[in-house]
């Protein structure tokens, strides 16, 4: 079961809050939700929207078609009417608004929509767009928000400006009414959201006004809930994972879509922890520093790591570009530091608030010279949490920077899932060769079989670090033989990692192993791919899915084994070049036979992946997806 709901409006007019109230009500009724947020790189005025998938089991993707569209402005209708298959809720007052008058819409979009409506023999007003939708079987629900606001204001006895947001509530109340669920869940959510009595009143009245007029279209019933569930977005999932994993120092410079993670940690600067000596619960601090730039951020994090603490930073493309030099220093000095890399649209400033998977190759090759860069990627919110801890373990075991990739489509999307899925008790800390009480002369860069030397916190022994090539002590060395050995020692850690980390942990396999068709994918498309493949399976087409989770060291043997004998290998990812496909080729010699790619900044919807797969199965080599307003 899946219902796709969408709400839109100008940035800064309460779209988020409305989506949250709506979601909370649905969740209270026992449903799972997957939500994606789209917004411009702008503070107020540009079009933003939330797309929610409601499901009776953990939801993991959005749809490109919309069952219920809740709108209160003209632009939302214009930007989305073509997507809707079910119902459009709209404001009576905007029907006459024509495209030309919606200035916040970019000229490219205006032009395209005008062209489209004209090609349909229609004019360019909201009414025309609605007429088109209606002709496709979409049901229209007209609300007069002005009237609702007025009535509400009158009823509560406040000026209309105070009751303004009642229209938001009206839109979600209408949506909710369509579902057929009990009103109390909604009312509770409203109450929980608005602290002030007046606002609760305003919104309750608006709800009543609307609910009475809208008839249910979907017959949803309350579902039983067992165990605890949480709702988190990707930024929070990573933050929580880091905190649980023992993060003690985080430095960052504000950047979309990474900084929400750091701001969350800043707001949780003290967390409860067991004192292993006394067994007591005591607070421990997490130092969070807003640095002056990303160069400072990575280097502060490396400095902190040298004191033996778990230390990290978080950024996105532009910041990561600036971190290149610092990451190289960390590689050279075998510093366990974690960089959470939120991928957004590039190159350059690109599309700061849109998603992308185009930074994989850069992450894998960042900075000059050769050194191990461990790169992992999460495919959903549960993984985002767990991988944050995995990243620390890898960093400390292999004493090298670990780059944890999380795309905007995960960071700013959220899902509801059972806490039990986090498997908290099975997650452990691996600190590698960290020496607590050194004795004897300490050689920080001692030559060892596995390439991993003992490590010690600054202050516990005298040690030397330098970005220059160095000897075992950590002093500069230009000797050619030491160079050959020390250089190799560092890189050999990747072989050790390759031996030690089970390949099964570096990828996940889904679907039918014996299928003739395999899909490789990574990161945020995971959910959509799995949903699309499930649909194909239900139609009798079997597909194996390989979700790549670690790119370096790459799970060579296992992918080779899994992909051997496949008739088609379909690479599904959010970039132009098919970067993971290239990494596969580089590591195994196996090349994807087909590609489904998308780089328009919007996440992959499950149904466009499904259609894409159909096209591929019909012989198309390269399918470019372009869904999403």
């Amino acid at each position: 079961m899946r219902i796709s709901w969408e709400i839109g409006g100008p940035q800064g007019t309460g779209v988020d809050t409305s989506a949250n109230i709506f979601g909370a009500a649905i969740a209270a009724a026992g449903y799972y939700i997957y939500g994606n947020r789209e917004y411009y790189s702008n503070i107020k005025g540009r079009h933003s929207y939330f797309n929610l998938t409601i499901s009776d089991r953990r939801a993991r993707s959005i749809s490109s078609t919309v069952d219920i569209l809740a709108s209160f402005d003209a632009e939302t209708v214009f930007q989305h009417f073509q997507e809707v298959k079910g119902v459009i809720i709209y404001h009576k007052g905007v029907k006459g608004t024509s495209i030309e008058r919606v200035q916040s819409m970019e000229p490219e979009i205006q032009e395209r929509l005008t062209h489209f409506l004209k090609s349909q023999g229609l004019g360019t007003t909201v009414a025309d767009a609605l007429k088109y939708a209606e002709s496709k079987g979409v049901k229209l629900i007209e609300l007069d928000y002005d009237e609702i606001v007025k009535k509400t204001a009158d009823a509560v006895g406040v000026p209309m400006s105070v009751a303004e947001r009642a229209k938001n509530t009206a839109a979600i109340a209408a949506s909710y009414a369509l579902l057929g669920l009990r009103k109390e869940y909604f009312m509770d959510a409203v109450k929980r959201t608005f602290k002030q009595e007046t606002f609760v009143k305003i919104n309750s009245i608006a709800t009543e006004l609307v609910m009475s007029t809208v008839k249910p279209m979907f017959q949803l019933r309350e579902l039983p809930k067992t165990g605890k569930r949480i709702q988190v977005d990707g930024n929070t999932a990573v933050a929580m994972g880091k905190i649980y994993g023992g993060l003690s120092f985080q430095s960052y410079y504000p950047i979309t879509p990474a900084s929400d993670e750091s701001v969350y940690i800043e707001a949780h600067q003290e967390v409860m922890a067991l004192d292993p000596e006394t067994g007591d619960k005591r607070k421990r601090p997490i130092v969070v520093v807003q640095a002056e730039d990303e160069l400072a951020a990575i280097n502060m994090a490396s400095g902190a790591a040298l004191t033996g603490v778990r230390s990290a930073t978080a950024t996105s493309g532009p910041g990561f570009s600036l971190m290149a030099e610092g990451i190289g220093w960390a590689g050279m000095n075998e510093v366990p530091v974690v960089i959470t890399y939120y991928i957004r649209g590039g190159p350059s400033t690109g599309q700061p608030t849109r998603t992308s998977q185009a930074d994989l190759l850069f992450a894998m090759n960042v900075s000059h010279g050769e050194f191990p860069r461990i790169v992992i990627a999460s495919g959903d919110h549960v993984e985002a949490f767990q991988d944050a801890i995995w990243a620390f373990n890898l960093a400390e075991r292999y004493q090298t920077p670990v780059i944890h990739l999380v795309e905007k489509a995960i960071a700013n999307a959220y899902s509801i899932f059972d806490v039990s899925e986090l498997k908290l008790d099975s997650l452990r800390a691996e600190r590698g060769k960290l020496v607590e009480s050194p004795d004897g002369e300490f050689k920080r860069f001692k030559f060892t079989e596995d390439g991993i030397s003992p490590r010690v916190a600054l202050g516990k022994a005298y040690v030397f670090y330098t970005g220059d090539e160095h000897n075992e002590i950590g002093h500069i060395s230009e000797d050619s033989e030491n160079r050959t050995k020390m250089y190799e020692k560092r890189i050999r850690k990747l072989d050790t990692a390759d031996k030690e980390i089970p390949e099964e942990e570096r990828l996940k396999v889904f679907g039918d192993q014996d299928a003739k068709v395999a899909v490789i994918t990574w990161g945020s498309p995971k959910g959509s791919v799995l949903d699309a493949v499930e649909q194909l399976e239900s139609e009798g087409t079997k597909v194996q899915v390989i979700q790549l989770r670690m790119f370096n060291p790459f799970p060579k043997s296992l992918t080779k084994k899994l992909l051997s004998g496949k008739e088609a290998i379909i690479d599904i990812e959010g970039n132009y070049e098919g970067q993971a496909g290239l990494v596969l080729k580089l590591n195994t010699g196996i090349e994807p036979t087909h590609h489904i790619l998308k780089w328009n900044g919007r996440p992959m919807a499950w149904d466009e992946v499904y259609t894409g797969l159909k096209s591929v199965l019909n012989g198309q080599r390269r399918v470019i997806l372009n869904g999403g307003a």
Partner: protein
Amino acid sequence: MVVPKVWVPEWNDWCPGCGNFGILNAEQQAITELGLTHEDVVVVSGIGCSGKTPHFFRLPISGVHTLHGRALTFATGIKLSNPELTVIVNGGDGDQLGIGVGHFVSAGRRNVDMLVILHDNGVYGLTKGQASPTLRRGEKTKSLPRPNVNDNVNPIALAISSGFTFVARSYAYDVKHLKELIKMGIKHKGLALIDVLQPCPTYNDIHTKEYFDKRVYKLDSDPSWDPVVRKPEEEGEKMSRAILKSLEWGEKIPIGLFYQNELVPPYEERIASNAPSYKERTPAKTKIEAEGKLLTLLDDILREKEI
């Protein structure tokens, strides 16, 4: 803790007569006189001739030789994770005031309790003598093809404008003077700068030992010179007086303490005021796992997100 049986210092490859030797000596003496050991001291440096300083210590301290211009950022991470360490930053003038000047200014806003020793030689030593940011416009040192086209930055004025709370100048060949200032700078609660006039006999043929020897004079030779801010109201006036003083550069060049202000709380205190547990359980002292079991309790955090 290891006390080295045989301490084998690195061979020091600075040029003969380099002012850096004086700086290193002063640092060593200060550390020794303060009774600091390798459990306490971490010397952080940038890149340049000056950047090699930690490797050349003849005391067992720890050294972190970082990136060009970035020493302050590494040092900040080290100090805030383990505030018990004494962190001394050695940087060149190119390192701190050229490529690293952004961090220099920004560090002033934090006032982390550290000492920055600026090796001020007017040139980019290790890259063969290009003009550094402290060289004045029109000056033509040995390896410049033409007179310098850039104006200089004034480290004292810049540090004060940026928020450093201890700002001094010394001279590499006056080891005793420098040593005393280093001790004061280490003891100072907050971010300290000592701008050390450091002759580079190889590339800087203008600001030589002879040049400085006859110009340098001590600020405290004037008994009325009081650079310490004791009341908030004094701040503006002591700042601008120090800046005016720092513009004195010609026949006479003042050395000594230009400005000190301990009324500004160091960053560590600011953290502790937000997170009181920081006072006792600094990151470096706090265990995050016991035999692999993670010790952080997630209940509160999960509860916030429960739905």
